[in-house]
């Protein structure tokens, strides 16, 4: 399977990655090689085979969806200390809504 430049651009957009024009042919070739490798799967008829999402077929444990802090030390301020830009306990991003 080969991928057109427009398809590479679409996948890159969905991935939130920028690809330079000059790099498109390399990505296109690499991805086509990988997809060719992957398509060996089509040699096998898998009709009726139950897909395997978990190696031990175990259900995922769920926890209560509760808001809270892990401890007095591991609080909002502590966890936000590693954020690139924070103000008044909020993460700063470029303006999202125009009004």
């Amino acid at each position, binding site marked *: 399977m080969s*991928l057109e430049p427009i398809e*590479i651009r679409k*996948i*890159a957009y*969905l*991935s*939130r*990655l*920028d690809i330079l024009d000059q790099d498109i042919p390399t*990505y296109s070739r*690499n*991805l086509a*090689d*990988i*997809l060719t*490798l*992957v*398509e*060996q*799967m*089509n040699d*096998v008829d*898998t009709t009726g*085979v*139950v*897909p*395997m*999402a*978990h*190696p*031990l077929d*175990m259900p*995922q*444990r*769920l*926890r209560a969806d509760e808001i809270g802090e892990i401890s007095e030390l*591991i609080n909002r301020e*502590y*966890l936000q*200390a*590693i*954020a*690139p*830009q924070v103000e008044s306990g909020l*993460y700063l*991003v*470029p*303006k*999202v809504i125009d009004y």
Partner: protein
Amino acid sequence: MKEKTISQLSIGLAAKEFSSKELTQMFLERIKKFNPLLNAFITVTNDVALVQAQAADRRRQQGLAGPLTGIPIAQKDIFCTNGVRTSCGSRMLDCFIAPYNATVVEKLNAVGMVMLGKTNMDEFAMGSSNENSFYGPVKNPWDLDTVPGGSSGGSAAAVAAWLAPAATATDTGGSIRQPAALCGLTGIKPTYGLVSRWGMIAYASSLDQGGPLAHTAEDCAFLLSAMAGFDPRDSTSIDRPIPDYVNTIKQPLEGLRIGLPKEYFSDGLDNAVAHTVEIAIDQYQKLGARIREISLPNSHLAIPAYYVIAPAECSSNLARFDGVRYGHRCNSPKDLLDLYTRSRTQGFGDEVKRRILVGTFALSAGYYDAYYLKAQQIRRLISDDFQRAFEYIDVIAGPTSPTVAFNLGERVDDPIKMYLSDMYTIAVNLAGLPGLSLPVGFVGKHPVGLQLIGNYFTEGRLLNVAHRYQQVTDWHARVPNEFT
């Protein structure tokens, strides 16, 4: 103190032949001397190490020391370490100081182990040669022109050159076992869910599993006993008691049924590696094992299925790196899309981008059934092959990797050729089984690894099978010339 296994060091510490502080200082000095040659460590934690070593010595004075108390260890830089940079080999996390410890780190701290530093790795554990690290490639201590394997290449090189007696590692498609093979070490990837993934930066969550890298199976037994165990914070952690793997390590091998998959000894396997593995199998026969050929007919589909499932899960996991909450953020973003796109484009390296793109494609509208669903069906077939084999054998044996360590730069321009390095290890992750690699000889100056695969939760048996071999051979005790 040098060139001693954990079990030997443990005896020395207990007999007060040396203190943990002395032992730790010796390793820190070796790191200072040899790391510039190998690039095995991204961060060396001198201060943390000395504080932990002194605490371990005090603990021993109080009579509270266990077998691992005061033993130094290197942590793969994929495990979050509180207050210490956790880069995952990526520019994205170059400035990331983890605000908490991974469960594995907590557990090893709890038994009194001493962290020497954080080891180099392929970016986000994506790679088989450690050449995909933002911090540069790692060199193989057995031959500095070759790769140590990956993604746990820094951990493997550090242990092989005796810059640390052991290290933690992770394995999504072979990243513990393949570096173990290429560096002459013993490493075990446990059953999926045995070791907590909490605080272990995610690559492909249904495949990722942590484990130890050390010189001997006995050392791995000590470490795995401490690392494994139920963790409510990991939703795929398995709730079952963890045995002391050291207790069962000496069992005799009489009557052990070993299966050799014919698919693991065919095209693509280097002749000299095949020969070395066959000699190891002969040794097992002498130890009382019965050998028979088996078939894993869907083996050739492991790499194709993996290169859908792993990239798909990685594209989803790595969506969290958005330049907002932590990690790299681009300068002066003009809008939200620009913030995401430029932060990610600057923060990720080539192989990570490639896998994100493949995964995004495989999961995109119109392709999901043809790729992701199909790969999960293949995964079932591969798993069923193993279960059929385990009806009449106990352990599967074969080469860990089709070749010995290859030259730096040799495969960087050919992703597919690089992927083939994991042709015998990947199926084990897809099935969620435990797998171990142990050193069984050399081709020239390059180590060869034997892979042992067991059924679910047979880590004790695998470590036992490796240990018995190491009682009658000395491959695990060899030291690369330049690092004696």
